[in-house]
């Protein structure tokens, strides 16, 4: 009478209960999986996220734990899952964090890229994740794409168009047709990311070019889903994340430390060296609240560009340390910085960001509607990643976040997840597949991505034998310089990271000869008005 109904005690001994439960599960499990969804032959359609792209490249180690590979493992299917594996150090060579001491130094793992390891497979790959692919790349064949000069860089590695020619048309199969040639019983579809990503990472919005229009997306996406449905395969479709929340967009602030230009520093700007100054956007105005400084901008700010101090660049492009922007000052870009403004492609303005976000929502509506239409499972990966970005993840007491380098969920390219991030995505798929089809799949174990493949206990080492000497410590202090203490502690971490970004090693700075296109006195006056820390 006083007891809540749902807490009625079960009088049977525990072992009898567990035995009963086990028997019921054993009896039901095959029935459930076979009755509602057939996972025996799985094919993944998507882009770099599906391919397992991490740290700016594609490599075996991470392809093996791409979310489709993890899903296939849980599907317990006997059919092998073939991927276009690439040897170390990856294509292109993966980025690695070389040092944190003098600022995050990030560079490629090698000069020579890795090689494809699975080119000889005599059928299309089961992982049809094509890095850089928009939806349209799946419904047009290689010849059409070639004519439009619209072939993603790694397209030929994944699709191998010459190997599979449609005998009727004598043209290459489309990527979509490739996927279906494998006669899947189950397909995951995570497409549309590149239909909005380019606009965010290039900071340039051209409707129909960097940002796919709703009408065009609806047509192409509909074609993909309809073709998969017509093949008889069941599917799970995933939504597009808000690309304005990825570290590539969110890491840098509208202020940076002015590094000067070495010997080329305009004399009047010399007192400003080492100070935190506001950055100037492509329109010549100081950046405003809501404007996003892209990772690519760090390459410019490291060279004194973007502070409104007009100095044209002459000479060789610098040895850039933030890998994602290694091409930031290629040949022909010299004239970009004559007025000291950040170029258009280094800034995603507030209005642009809103446009990208709004378009993402529109395209997700299309995905959702199409999923409902054909009875596909709808995996809210977009919402899931948004939640990670807002709340982070407390994994057994370890704090994960979407913060660049330090957060543990996004890899060094600032766009693609880490292996743990991909495993979390796999579990989001599994959750929805279980809910929709009653598949009863076990979640992917996160343990290898937290403790490594073998759970090694912390070494019991004498601290004195491992920690750096005090001389080294002092040397580091000199490197880092003073100035951190003056910030409130809560801002410290962020501020310090920003500062570390700005402080490239001196040898990384370009030796250039510059002219003042803008009077330094003007520039200083402008700083005088606007110099403030947020």
């Amino acid at each position, binding site marked *: 009478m*006083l007891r809540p109904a749902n807490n009625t005690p079960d009088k049977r001994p525990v072992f009898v209960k567990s035995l009963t439960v086990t028997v019921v599960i054993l009896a039901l499990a095959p029935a459930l999986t076979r009755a509602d969804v057939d996972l025996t032959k799985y094919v993944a359609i998507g882009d770099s996220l599906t391919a397992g792209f991490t740290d700016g490249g594609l490599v075996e180690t991470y392809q093996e734990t791409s979310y489709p590979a993890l899903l296939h493992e849980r599907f317990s299917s006997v059919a092998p899952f073939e991927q276009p594996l690439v040897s170390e150090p990856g294509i292109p060579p993966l980025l*690695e964090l070389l040092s944190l*001491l003098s600022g995050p130094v990030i560079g490629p793992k090698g000069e020579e890229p890795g090689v494809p390891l699975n080119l000889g497979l005599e059928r299309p790959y089961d992982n049809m994740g094509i890095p850089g692919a928009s939806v349209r790349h799946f419904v047009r064949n290689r010849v059409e794409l070639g004519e439009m000069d619209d072939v993603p860089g790694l397209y030929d590695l994944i699709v191998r168009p010459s190997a599979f020619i449609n005998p009727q048309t004598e043209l290459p199969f489309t990527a979509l047709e490739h996927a279906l040639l494998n006669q899947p019983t189950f397909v995951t579809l995570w497409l549309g990311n590149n239909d909005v990503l380019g606009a965010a990472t290039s900071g340039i919005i051209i409707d129909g070019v960097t940002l796919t229009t709703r009408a065009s997306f609806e047509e192409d996406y509909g074609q993909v889903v309809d073709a998969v449905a017509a093949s008889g395969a069941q599917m799970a479709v995933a939504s597009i994340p808000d690309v304005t929340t990825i570290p590539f967009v969110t890491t840098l602030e509208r202020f940076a430390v002015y590094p000067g230009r070495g010997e080329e520093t305009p004399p009047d700007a010399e007192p400003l060296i080492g100070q935190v100054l506001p950055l100037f956007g492509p329109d010549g105005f100081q950046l405003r609240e809501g404007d996003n400084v892209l990772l690519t901008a760090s390459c410019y700010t490291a060279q004194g560009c973007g502070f409104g101090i007009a100095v044209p660049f002459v000479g060789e492009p610098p040895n850039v340390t933030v890998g994602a922007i290694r091409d930031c000052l290629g040949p022909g870009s010299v004239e970009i910085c004559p007025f000291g403004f950040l170029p258009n492609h280094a800034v995603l303005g507030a209005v642009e960001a809103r446009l990208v976000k709004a378009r993402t929502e529109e395209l997700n509506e299309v995905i959702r509607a199409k999923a409902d239409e054909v009875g596909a499972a709808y995996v809210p990966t977009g919402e899931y990643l948004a939640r990670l970005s807002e709340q982070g993840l*407390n994994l057994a*007491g370890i704090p*994960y976040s979407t913060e660049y380098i330090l957060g543990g969920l996004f890899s060094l390219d600032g766009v693609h997840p880490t292996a743990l991030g991909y495993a979390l995505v796999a579990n989001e798929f599994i959750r929805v597949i279980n809910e929709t089809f009653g598949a009863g799949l076990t979640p992917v174990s996160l343990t290898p991505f937290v403790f490594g493949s073998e759970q090694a206990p912390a070494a019991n080492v004498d601290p004195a034998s491992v920690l750096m000497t005090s001389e080294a410590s002092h040397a580091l202090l000199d490197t880092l310089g003073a100035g951190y203490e003056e910030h409130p502690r809560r801002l410290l971490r962020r501020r310090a990271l920003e500062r570390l970004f700005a402080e490239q090693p001196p040898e990384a700075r370009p030796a250039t000869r510059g002219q003042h296109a803008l009077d330094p006195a003007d520039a200083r006056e402008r700083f005088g008005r606007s110099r403030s820390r947020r």
Partner: protein
Amino acid sequence: MRSKRLARQLAVALVFSLAGVAVPVFAGGFEIYTHGAKATGLGGAFSAQADDPSAIFYNPAGLAFQRERSFLAGVSSISLGDTDFRGLPPFPDSSASGTRLDRIVHAPHLYALWPLGERLTIGLGINTPFLFSTEWENPDAWAGRFIATKAELNAVDLVPTVGVRVSDSFSIGVGIAARAASVELQRRLAIPDPFGNTGIVEFARLVMETDSDVDVGFNVGLLYRPTETFSVGLTYRSPIDVKLDGYGRLTQIPTGNPELDLLLVVPGSPFEQPFDVDLPMTTSFDFPDSLSLGIAYRFNDDVIAEVDFNWTGWGRFDRITTEFPEYPEQDFVRVENWVDVWHYRIGVNWSLNSSNEIRWGFIYDQSPQPDESIGPIIQDADRRGFTFGYGRVGQHVNFDLALEYAPYQKRTPSVSNNNFFGTYETSTWLLAASLGF
């Protein structure tokens, strides 16, 4: 000569306590409901009898019917149980296991009564109303070490009480409970390894300890004995919120990466940690209120049975907020969201002859802890328990002994606030003794 006898009796009590003769029993969560061996033998169904000095806890109104100066002392040696943890995917997966170390806690209870005048009895009691202590074996490898390697809460009540007999059949009692509480939590700290796409770096031990702090609540009880054979008791114990001050201390663990080790100690680096200093910390704990309704019936001269319905307001325990005023990065809020629960107790007391009594009891106890809060700090579960007790009634000295066995049911939460999944299985026992004179 009386004092000599007293000393001997105290010595006997001490021997029992050292021998592991124990008293308390848990009631849902980490509320302890064994504050006298007689009541424990009855499964805790005692609020309608309350006829020994432990009435100070079970029903302060029971004091008013006790007309002799008396004293009751006991020590509770509680096996907190060892818990086997077996991980489940997604984390830490079935490859992970852990063992919570068993620990035997000795918690005393002491009660003294003095009748004053015709209708009044005053008393003073000390007992341990709440307690938990968790420590995991092999803390260097324990998968839950970033949540807790050790967690402990201690609370001791000092309860001055007064009972008033309003009529021959009705009494009321009121006590002031001054509660001294302290908590301790130890865990490891780790961050995602910035140099590796997989893995973490474990870089510090964190020990948080509070001083004991005292906050005050009250107990109130009613006891109604309309006939020789029937009595009803009602007891309410108020909630007590304690605010605790203490310190947290970080000790560096070498990560194996000299660069990171250095960044952790360099002032101003994004990784800087305040190692080896006492960081002031404040936290608070909201102890629940509780209500007991007991009905006792005397079947004949030898047999009394009682049934108690107990409610504990664990819904108050919704979160633990811990703040480090000088180091806000370590601030945390643990969401607990416990729920109010009922527990039921039945006990039978059978007098074999004028000096020997035996007792049985049955306990049905619900866990107030929701699935999502189960974890390495507290792993509560429903329990059903049996008690057996023996009482020796002497001319000057009473001696009571009780044994309780109340195993936890296996618990496998499907949701977890900390994303830490697995099965917890706890086995435990309890033995209690009190000596009264």
